[in-house]
């Protein structure tokens, strides 16, 4: 199959891929965040800026939930930071996939700021279909498109513009983890697959014993296990 190597086609593909699901999923999940922000006493523009600047739902939820329970500023920022710590390894694994060797530091920081779990998962899935020099354009178009949908969704949720029956809301909340589970099920590479399986096995225990840092522990233990197991496996194949 020929790779896509034309900027118009790449932009069209990125927008079509975002509208195929991720933009709608983010619109509805951020509606939930916007409505929580409204209930907690934040202003509409703060809710929009929070989505734009934090751009990671677990951290945004930590911020609004701890504000609601009357925690101090340092506790709130610390909890938000821990909930979004996954961005560090996500950025490391994502930046080389764009194959942009000569990007300046400010450009790379902007790329990192735009990254979310949606674009991480979707781009790692779709990049093999795009010529390497157009992957950054694909990423930026896709990421801007879903960020816009997320900010609009936040404001819709804040103003309670869309009132839906509870059963429908449950189905909409469910779309987000479901989407990622389906996208990641196609991940190639034995190390990555073993890491994901061990991550799923470890997270209930980590969540039970260390709820504040459950994902950090899950990542370190599960990822190290997947990494070592795959190396051990490959060494066995070479013999």
């Amino acid at each position, binding site marked *: 199959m020929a790779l896509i190597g034309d900027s118009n086609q790449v932009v069209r593909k990125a927008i079509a891929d975002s509208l*195929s699901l991720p933009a709608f*999923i983010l619109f509805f999940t951020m509606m939930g965040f916007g409505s929580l922000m409204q209930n907690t*006493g934040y202003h509409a523009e*703060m809710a929009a*800026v*929070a989505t734009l*600047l*934090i751009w990671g739902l677990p*951290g945004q939820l930590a*911020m609004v939930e701890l504000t609601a329970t009357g925690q101090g500023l340092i506790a709130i*920022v610390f909890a*938000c*930071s821990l909930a*979004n710590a*996954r*961005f*560090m390894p*996500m950025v*490391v*694994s994502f*930046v*080389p996939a764009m194959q942009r060797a000569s990007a300046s*530091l400010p450009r*790379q*920081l902007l790329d990192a700021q735009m*990254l979310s779990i949606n674009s*991480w998962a979707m781009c790692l899935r779709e990049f093999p279909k795009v010529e390497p020099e157009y992957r950054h354009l694909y990423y930026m178009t896709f990421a801007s498109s879903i960020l816009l949908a997320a900010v609009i969704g936040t404001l819709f949720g804040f103003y309670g513009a869309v009132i839906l029956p*509870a*059963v429908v809301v*449950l*189905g*909409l*909340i*469910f*779309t987000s*983890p*479901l989407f*990622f*589970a*389906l996208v*990641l099920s196609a991940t190639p590479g034995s*190390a990555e697959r*073993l*890491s*994901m399986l061990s*991550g*799923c096995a470890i*997270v*209930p225990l*980590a969540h039970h014993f260390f709820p504040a840092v459950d*994902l950090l522990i*899950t*990542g*370190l*233990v*599960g*990822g*190290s296990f*997947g990494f070592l197991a*795959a190396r051990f496996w490959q060494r066995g194949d070479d013999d």
Partner: protein
Amino acid sequence: MTTEWLWIAVIACGAATFAWRALGVFVVRRIDPRGPFFQWVTCVSYAMVAGLIFRMLVLPESELASVPLAVRVGAVVIAFAAYFAFSRRLVAGVLAGSLSLSTMVHWFS
């Protein structure tokens, strides 16, 4: 809470998240993307993301916690069945899974 306090909370949370992203950029500029350290960090990110999704499905903190585990697992199975039945189309899987979850909740409650 005052308006200033709330603004500071939002901006400080944005900065705290950006610190992790920037740390990722500084690390990636200094390592070989074909080396073992990069592969290990990639494995850590896959394990973290998979753990996050598994937690959202199995141990949700959202309103999904009110849905019985068996219903959630059943809807995931239906989603995967539809995904593979419709030649790996994400829309088919997500629609089938979330519609079946809503339908089951509607019937059983």
